[in-house]
Structure formats: C-alpha cells, structure tokens
C-alpha cells in the first residue's frame, strides 16, 4: 500500500482488519457490507482518476464515462439483451453470451483505455479550466449515448437500462449465492467485498509502482511545469495519453464490477454528479498521495450512507420538518467546506519535505 509499513506485524494487522471487517459488518446487516463494497469501487475509481489528475495534473471532469463504458461492456456481454436485439447471434451462442470475469476484466480495461486515449488526443493542448470543460462534455456525451442508443437499433436499451446481468463467478462459484464454509456463512455482499478488495489492492500496487518510476516522475514533471518538462526531453504527448489511458482502465474495470454487483445498470448511475464526487474524493483526500486518495474515497462514499443514521433521529427531533435527504447533502457540504478550510491540501496530503528552508547555501 501507499502507506509505508513500519513493521511486518503492522502489515499483518492491516490484513487481518481488512479481512475480518465484512464479517463484523455483516452481523449488523448486509446493507452495511454493501456500503463497504461500494466504497471499495469508489476507491478504485479515485485511484484511477488520481493517475490523471493527481499525477499528470490533467483535470478530468468526465471520468465517470469510463466507469459507464466498463459497466455497459459487462452489461451487454453478460445479459440477454444483446442476443434479443440481434437474434442472428443466437445461432452462435445458443446459451447466451455469458463471458467470464477473467475475459471481461481485460476487455473493460482495454476498451476504457482506448476511450481514455481517444479523449486525450484532441485535448493535448488544453490545460486547467479548458480541459475540464472538454472532459465534462465527454462524460455527458457518453451518458447521452447510453440514454439514446435504443434507436434505431436497440443497443443500450436506453433509459430502461440493462438487466438482468450475470453475477461474477470465481472458481465456479457465482458470487450472487452465499458461500457456506462450514464454520461461517458468507453472504453475496461479503464475497463481493473480497473480490473488490483484491482488485483495489492490485490497483494500489500498480499506482504505487508507477508513482515511483521514470514514468511517474515524468507525469509529475508535466503537472508541475509542462514547458520545462518538454525542455528536459519528455515527450509530453505520449505521456499524457498514457495517463489518460491508464487512469481510464481503472474506471473501466470498476464499471464492469459495478454492473456485475448491481445486476442492473441504467444511464442514471453515470451522471455528472458522479464525476464530481470522484474528483472531490481525490482532491479532499490529498491530490497525488495514495493513502489520502483512498481515505477521501472511503469517506465520501461511506459518509452519505452513515449520515442516514444521523439524519433520521434529527428528522424526528424536528417533528419531520427536515427532509433527511436534504439534511444529508447539507452535512456533506459542510464537511467538505470544513476540510477545505482547515486542510486545504487535503485530509492526508503527501508529506512536506523541507518545509523549513534548508538555509542559505550549500556547504
């Protein structure tokens, strides 16, 4: 992980906590584990966006598009919809297209990476606000496509959404069914927790390694000063495209997982608000710093759900005049403003080397 373990025992402690966590949660109800599952998906999204925004400094406000692409790819390949639209395909796949997870994961990553580069290519000369506007448009374009591609040929089933989507099977066991281990029963949500946790750990590993590499340094150089980076011989075009593609591939994988987990997807899940939330996770947590990004994602994904618990009693206190949904949004907004006021560089920013100036001159 991005956190430097001071000892092996600390790493073991983390492993035990992360593995036991859903077992404790599930005793309070599966809804809690579900929140943990969604948080893990958001962590993956935030990690992917962090490659683009945190490392390469390219503000992407349409990141949810890649999440949507992954989700629809899995949705189409693992639901009866595609064969209903194209009966001709039925002859080839009489039992329906039910692609396995291991086939879909790389496909989702590659498709999203391709679209990431496609978005990157025309925006190479844009920076900051201008780039944000173009990427925002891209995110909406994808969503609008999903919403309207039910005519003339029904590909995405439009606003009605796609379903039922097959659950993921691991080692022959579909994760939608509970697993009885004899001494303990693991419900579907807990099984998904472990799958998502594994994917998140892989994502963290990849990000961590990239951060401390020649390519990671070049990304950060582009973020800091593009002109200087180019003058040092860095081919900024290729590296920006790589950042877009790599960041997008995380989103694509998370999307495919989301589709399998929910069993149903519709364009509604991929609104601009989602993109904004993912950007907020990265920025609030600590731009470019993995532990911060993870913390931001977990907090912002779980906070709205946890606040339900707070909102309900408050509503009763005020005699039902407060709408809990609005109250929740208000509390989240206050939390975000608070963080930006007291921790402007994020909750857990990268450590400040040499905060105090090291003095006037070298010896």
């Amino acid at each position, binding site marked *: 992980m991005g956190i430097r373990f001071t000892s092996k025992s600390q790493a073991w402690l983390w492993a035990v906590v992360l593995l036991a966590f859903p077992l404790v949660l599930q005793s309070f109800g599966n809804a809690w584990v579900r929140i943990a599952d969604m948080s893990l998906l958001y962590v993956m999204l935030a990690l992917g966006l962090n490659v683009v925004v945190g490392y390469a400094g390219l503000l992407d406000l349409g990141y949810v598009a890649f999440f949507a692409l992954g989700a629809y790819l899995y949705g189409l390949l693992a639901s009866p919809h595609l064969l209903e639209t194209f009966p001709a395909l039925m002859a080839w796949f009489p039992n329906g297209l039910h692609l396995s997870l291991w086939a879909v994961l790389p496909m989702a990553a590659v498709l999203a990476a391709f679209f990431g580069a496609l978005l990157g290519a025309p925006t190479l000369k844009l920076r900051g606000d201008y780039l944000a506007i173009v990427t925002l448009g891209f995110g909406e374009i994808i969503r609008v496509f999903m919403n309207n591609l039910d005519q003339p040929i029904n590909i995405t089933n439009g606003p009605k959404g796609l379903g039922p989507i097959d659950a993921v099977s691991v080692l022959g066991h579909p994760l939608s069914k509970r697993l009885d281990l004899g001494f303990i029963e693991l419900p579907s949500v807990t099984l998904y927790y472990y799958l998502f946790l594994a994917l998140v750990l892989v994502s963290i590993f990849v990000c961590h*390694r990239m951060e401390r590499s*020649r390519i990671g340094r070049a990304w950060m150089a582009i973020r800091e000063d593009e002109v200087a*980076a*180019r003058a040092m011989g*860095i081919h900024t075009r290729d590296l920006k495209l790589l950042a877009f593609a790599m960041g997008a591939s995380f989103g694509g994988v998370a999307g495919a997982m989301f589709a399998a987990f929910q069993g149903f997807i519709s364009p509604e899940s991929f609104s601009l608000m989602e993109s904004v939330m993912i950007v907020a996770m990265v920025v609030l947590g600590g731009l470019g710093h993995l532990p911060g990004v993870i913390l931001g994602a977990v907090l912002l994904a779980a906070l709205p759900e946890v606040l339900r618990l707070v909102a309900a009693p408050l509503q009763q206190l005020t005699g039902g005049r407060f709408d809990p949904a609005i109250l929740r949004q208000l509390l989240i907004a206050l939390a975000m403003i608070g963080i930006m006021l007291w921790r402007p560089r994020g909750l857990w920013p990268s450590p400040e080397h040499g*905060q105090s100036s090291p003095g006037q001159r*070298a010896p």
Partner: protein
Amino acid sequence: MSEAVLNVRGVGKRFGGLQALSGVDLRIERGQVYGLIGPNGAGKTTFFNVITGLYTPDSGQFELGGQTYEPTAVHKVAQAGIARTFQNIRLFAEMTALENVMVARHCRTSAGVWGAIWRTARFRAEEADTAARAQALLEYVGIGTYAPYKARTLSYGDQRRLEIARALATDPLLIALDEPAAGMNATEKLELRALIDKIRNDQRTVLLIEHDVKLVMGLCDRVTVLDHGQRIAEGTPAQIQRDPLVIEAYLGTGAH
C-alpha cells in the same frame, strides 16, 4: 579549427510584420563558453527559442555535434543534445531537488510501464543509476545536501544551481543558459561564474545569453552581438568591446 558543437547558418524568423531574426550565423566550439548579447529586443531570446525548438524557424541550417537537426519540437531538441535553463526559473516546484534532476534523465533512459510495475532487474538497475547520477550532479553544482527538499523551498541561487544540474542531467552537447544571472546579487553572481567556469573546465560547452555585460566579458571565450535581429559583431570579448557597431548599438550614435 576545433570541432563545432553547434553550427547554425542563416537563421531567419518573422513574426507578422516584424523580422525578428535575419540570416543569423553562430558557431560554437567544444569547451567554449559562448556569449550571446545585445540590447533589449535584439532577438536574443527569439534566437534561443528557435535553436531549442520552441519557435519554428522560417529559414536556416542547424547542425549539432556534426549532425543536422531539425528544431521542430522542444523534446526532440533536448534529446538531440541541447539542454536549457529558463530566464524565470522553471523547476518542478513540488518535487524534491533529487527528483528534479532524475526527471531530466528521462530521455536517456527507457523503462516502461511493464518494468515499473514488476520492478524488473533492468528497471532497478536503471533507477539506481539515475538516482546516483542525479545525486552526483547535485553535488557537482554544490547543493548535494538539499537532495530531499522540495525545489520550491530552496533559495533563489540554489534554485538556479538546481536548474543547471537538471540541464546537465540530460547529457547535453550544449547547455544553454538564458540570463542565469538575472536577479542575482554580487556574491551569487561570483558563485555562478565559478560554476560556469567549472562546467567549461569539464570540457562541456555553454551558450550564455546575458544582459550582464561584465559577466559575459569576464567569462566568455567568444561573443556574438545581435541587434535588430542581425549579427553585428562576433569575436573575443576584447574585440567586441572595441567594435564601433557594438558601441553604437549599446550607446546610440551621439547627436552630431
């Protein structure tokens, strides 16, 4: 005549109605500190930006280390072997001093995504070599102890040194300094002069664009003077100082 590191002929560049450069020649030999001076608006910076690929020239032949190069893209020029510093220092502020120099090794190294993720033996060897060279360069310019500090926390003079170390890290044939003494006090200027002297003594070649005539005259082996986009003089500092055209360009023709 010794071997030319940079040899450009007939460089022309026009911005709309302004002929910023016309037919400028420049020949720099190995181990020289070469000065490029001229009054404000003479075309120094334009020339600098042309040879480093920031502006596309309208005409001219460009040779670097005996081979022709096309100054069409900044990163290609850097790869070909011209490293530059900036008039207003442009460091990677949020990266450490060491990382700043390591970044500049980018074009001389080749590790890709695969190597980075799996930490292959080749990747690790390359990283270790990059870090070692970067540390050595920081020590070379005299800021070795500041390696773990973020670039923005260094003092002004040290930021200049860091920029020079970063430029040296690209293994350049020619290192081009754009007004390095700008904003420096007298002590800092003396130290800068010592550093450039040291770089020359290591058989490296330096192109110096500078306003500070005293620094240029004291340091450079040869000097070219630009005025109104044209070369008006070329020679040793002593020759330049006596050149009537140069005196006229700097002081104007007195009212007769």
